[in-house]
């Protein structure tokens, strides 16, 4: 059977989603597929269009790639608008020719409505819909000072924010008496206005523009019907959208009175071979100006083309939750209470700027709609009540009261029925999620990958996580890899976010991906991730507040508030002169001195203000910090090796020093220890270390992920007879993989035990490069090695950083009275307080 031809007009969000669905289904085999796009670019994420001004490129926003289209055998013809449709001949016309179709899908979206105002053709008047529009606005803004958005709806406010981000004084001109008239009521609109004005955007309501003329102080002047006027350098119209139904009109398809291509539940138009989906389609007299309903239509149509008799579009929820200019706004269901008999409950705290309104049914049992301004934390719960018709509690007001005033906690995921829709973008119900978990998905990531939930607008992320956690818990799975209450991510996920998005500060990370202000769990974890990624000095101003006290003061705090100091002694090799310096410094400051298990010297009892003085001397003598305080490489222990030992086959000390110099300072999820033995007698106890190296006749054997301490683990033999270079490259890769993927405070031993596929998997990744990431891991490591600095050296040379080491900032001479000393075995030690 020869293939039929399917043509899609419009390469926007919904058209693209439709193709994704179709090619993954059996019907794909029946069609040759052609796609026409009027825009020059491949379909992109219009919902996040504004991010284009924040530096995102088309590639960042793109929904797919040209390669994907080629691989699927889809012919993609961009920059080629369809200008004509002949239904009798079943052809479409473009400037380049005519094309025959058997089935036609119209996914032409909508276009911005520009009110018929005199002067609207002025070159500094724009709309806000496409990347090209944004390019033009950016160009115009460069030489301008102010900008006006006509229209105070959702998109208008987004556009106003964009103008503000371009450095313009932004104004919003709205015809109605309040902002977002569709979604909000008078009180909500007033609060939103107040908040937005606080942010420096001027709002003008009840203004009808009559003409746009040349300005006196700015490029343009807008005249209003009340005889007032406003001068501005550019104007963005955002006065609503109109369905793009030109082809349907000219070919006699049925269209709505106010536009829109009429479709039935199967998304088919009045011509059985023509279908329409997305914002151009009119279903049940309604246009859906959001992406989720468009996606649902796309899925429905794909099923229909696969012969599914049951597939039907049955309408969609238009609830929205957004952050407009940083202000939370939510609108659910019948927000205006138009249902007969509907009653209202309002909570309005002008002090903190929170407004909440619930619209409930006459019998008080069901939630019909809601409005939220200033705080969306109640949104998920309210939406679930509204969507699933869950019976309201006896005192429904508790749902919107602050907890301190008797408010109820959020609706637990257990209370949701199986049919509850969790992700409306991808139409995923709680039942689907349970199904995915029962089919083997063991964490949030795999549920997302399996069901696609939360990969659309992202609005359902928190709810999805709750459901997954609660279901996993029910099945006895230990959950919550969450770092803490501030970040719903594991360390690995955070690492990825930091690296991929180039995030360099804690504040950016928590603003974009967390909540609240952080704590002693997430701050050091993020500090370590930032250090692993970018290797900036840990006392750089942004990083100071992130470090654990030991990292902040680059020494180990002991029980009486004093510190111990451990200079680096690579491989345990030290010259007599340096040893003498250690002795002299210890004597001068009366420091208790002890040899550590890692072949170095630990000096105890230094006060905060003594630390920089002591380090000045140590640095002058050639010492570097030993990072005994950090989650980083501690020591590389070694035996004396072939240089002296009669059994030795390789220079273990030389290799230990080389390794220690290479990895010193690297920040990791936990401390890392290494050791090198000069022969199989293993005097350096390398097999109890994270990385153990044992010399062979032919080179080095590498053992990984061992541990001593509380939970001993014998290291696994990873590779044999490596040359010096091979050894270092192999360790580079394993260390970096560990740094990137381990959880907070997870030693390599536990990391390995939790690694799916275990040792074999690790070997494949590192030795055979099965993931193709080895070059990247090495490069990352080289970058870190290349930017090493001795933190103490940097700190003592910088007066600003030294300021941190004042014990009492207003009393430099003051001695901490609780540090009391006595003498034992000829050395000073703290007096133990009587407990």
């Amino acid at each position, binding site marked *: 059977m020869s293939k039929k031809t399917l043509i899609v007009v419009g390469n926007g969000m919904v058209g693209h989603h439709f193709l994704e669905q179709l090619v993954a289904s059996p019907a794909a085999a029946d069609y040759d597929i052609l796609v026409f796009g009027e825009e020059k670019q491949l379909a992109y994420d219009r919902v996040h269009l504004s991010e284009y001004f924040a530096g995102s490129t088309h590639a960042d926003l793109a929904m797919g790639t040209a390669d994907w289209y080629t691989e699927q055998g889809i012919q993609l013809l961009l920059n080629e608008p369809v200008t004509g449709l002949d239904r009798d001949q079943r052809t479409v016309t473009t400037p380049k020719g005519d094309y025959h179709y058997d089935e036609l899908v119209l996914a032409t979206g909508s276009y911005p409505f520009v009110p018929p105002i005199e002067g609207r053709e002025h070159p500094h008047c724009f709309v806000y819909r496409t990347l090209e529009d944004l390019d033009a606005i950016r160009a115009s803004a460069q030489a301008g000072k102010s900008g006006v958005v006509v229209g105070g709806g959702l998109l208008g406010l987004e556009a106003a924010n964009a103008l503000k981000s371009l450095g313009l004084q932004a104004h919003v001109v709205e015809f109605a008496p309040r902002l977002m008239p569709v979604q909000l009521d008078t009180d909500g609109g007033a609060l939103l206005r107040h908040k937005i004005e606080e942010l420096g955007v001027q709002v003008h309501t009840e203004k009808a523009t009559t003409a746009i003329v040349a300005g006196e102080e700015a490029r343009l002047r807008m005249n209003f019907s009340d005889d007032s006027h406003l001068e501005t350098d550019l104007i963005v119209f955002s006065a609503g959208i109109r369905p793009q139904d030109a082809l349907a009109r000219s070919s006699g398809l049925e269209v709505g009175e106010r536009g829109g291509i009429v479709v039935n539940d199967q998304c088919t138009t009045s011509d059985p071979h023509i279908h329409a989906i997305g914002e151009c389609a009119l279903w049940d007299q309604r246009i859906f100006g959001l992406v989720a309903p468009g996606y649902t239509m796309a899925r429905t149509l794909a099923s229909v083309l696969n012969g599914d008799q049951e597939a039907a579009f049955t309408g969609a929820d238009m609830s929205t939750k957004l952050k407009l200019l940083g202000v939370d706004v939510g609108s659910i269901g019948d927000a205006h209470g138009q249902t007969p008999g509907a009653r209202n409950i309002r909570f309005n705290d002008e002090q903190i700027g929170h407004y909440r309104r619930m619209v409930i049914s006459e019998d008080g049992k069901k939630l019909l709609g809601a409005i939220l301004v200033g705080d969306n934390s109640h949104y998920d719960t309210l939406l679930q009540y509204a969507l699933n018709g869950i019976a309201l509690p006896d005192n429904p007001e508790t749902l919107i009261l602050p907890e301190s005033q008797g408010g109820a906690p959020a609706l637990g995921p257990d209370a949701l029925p199986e049919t509850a829709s969790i992700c409306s973008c991808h139409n995923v119900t709680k039942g689907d999620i349970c199904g995915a978990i029962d089919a083997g998905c063991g964490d949030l990531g795999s549920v997302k990958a399996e069901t696609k939930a939360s990969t659309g607008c992202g609005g359902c992320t928190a709810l999805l996580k709750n459901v997954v956690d609660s279901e996993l818990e029910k099945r006895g799975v230990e959950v919550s890899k969450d770092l803490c209450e501030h970040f719903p991510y594991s360390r690995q996920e955070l690492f990825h976010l930091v690296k991929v998005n180039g995030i360099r500060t804690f504040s950016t990370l928590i603003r974009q991906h967390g909540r609240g202000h952080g704590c002693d769990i997430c701050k050091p974890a993020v500090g370590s991730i930032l250090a692993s990624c970018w290797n900036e000095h840990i006392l750089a101003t942004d990083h100071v507040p992130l470090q654990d006290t030991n990292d902040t003061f680059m020494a180990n705090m002991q029980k009486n*508030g004093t510190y111990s100091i451990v200079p680096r002694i690579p491989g345990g090799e030290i010259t007599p002169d340096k040893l003498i310096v250690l002795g002299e410094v210890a004597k001068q400051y009366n420091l208790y001195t002890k040899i550590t298990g890692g072949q170095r010297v630990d000096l105890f009892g230094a006060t905060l203000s003594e630390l920089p003085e002591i380090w000045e001397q140590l640095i002058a003598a050639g010492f570097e910090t030993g990072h005994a305080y950090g989650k980083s490489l501690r020591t590389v222990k070694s035996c004396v090796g072939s240089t002296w030992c009669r059994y030795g086959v390789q220079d273990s000390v030389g290799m230990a020093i080389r390794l220690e110099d290479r990895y010193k300072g690297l920040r990791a999820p936990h401390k890392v220890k290494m050791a090198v033995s000069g022969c199989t007698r293993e005097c350096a106890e390398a097999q109890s270390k994270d990385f153990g190296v044992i010399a062979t006749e032919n080179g080095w054997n590498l053992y990984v992920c061992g541990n001593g301490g509380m939970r001993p683990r014998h290291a696994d033999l990873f590779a044999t007879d490596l040359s010096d270079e091979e050894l270092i490259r192999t360790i580079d890769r394993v260390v970096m993989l560990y740094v990137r993927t381990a959880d907070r405070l997870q030693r390599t031993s536990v990391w390995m035990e939790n690694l799916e596929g275990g040792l074999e998997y690790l070997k494949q990744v590192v030795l055979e490069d099965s993931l193709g990431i080895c070059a990247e891991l090495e490069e990352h490591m080289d970058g870190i090695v290349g930017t090493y600095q001795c933190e103490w050296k940097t700190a003592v040379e910088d007066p600003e950083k030294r300021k941190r080491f004042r014990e009492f*900032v207003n009393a430099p001479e003051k001695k901490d009275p609780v540090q009391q000393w006595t003498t034992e075995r000829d050395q000073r030690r703290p007096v133990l307080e009587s407990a």
Partner: protein
Amino acid sequence: MKARTCWEAVCTVEDLVPESGIAVWTAAGPVAVFYLPHRLPALFAISHTDPFSGANVLARGLTGDLKGQPVVASPLYKQHFNLVTGQCLEDEAVSVQTYPVLLDGNEIRLEVPVKQSETEAA
């Protein structure tokens, strides 16, 4: 009888470290002053002495928020103290002294009891 107090100037704005603490010596002994710029008010003062270890270290703890309350974590055994009330979050029976704090021009002032014998200061 209510002890007499005064507003003692303890340091300047330049001494503060955002999102972190510093220690000052006052008529009432060692006090930790925290500066959390995202909060209103942004300054907090509590005793610098960690009640669990007796060591003067609280200013060197990590700050943050737990369930919305501003806290510092003791750098020794990691208990959290509410910066407003001094209450220890892990142990109801333990709390640390808090002090009213204000910004006077460029100076940070603490309200401390006037007469506090300094005998313990060795």
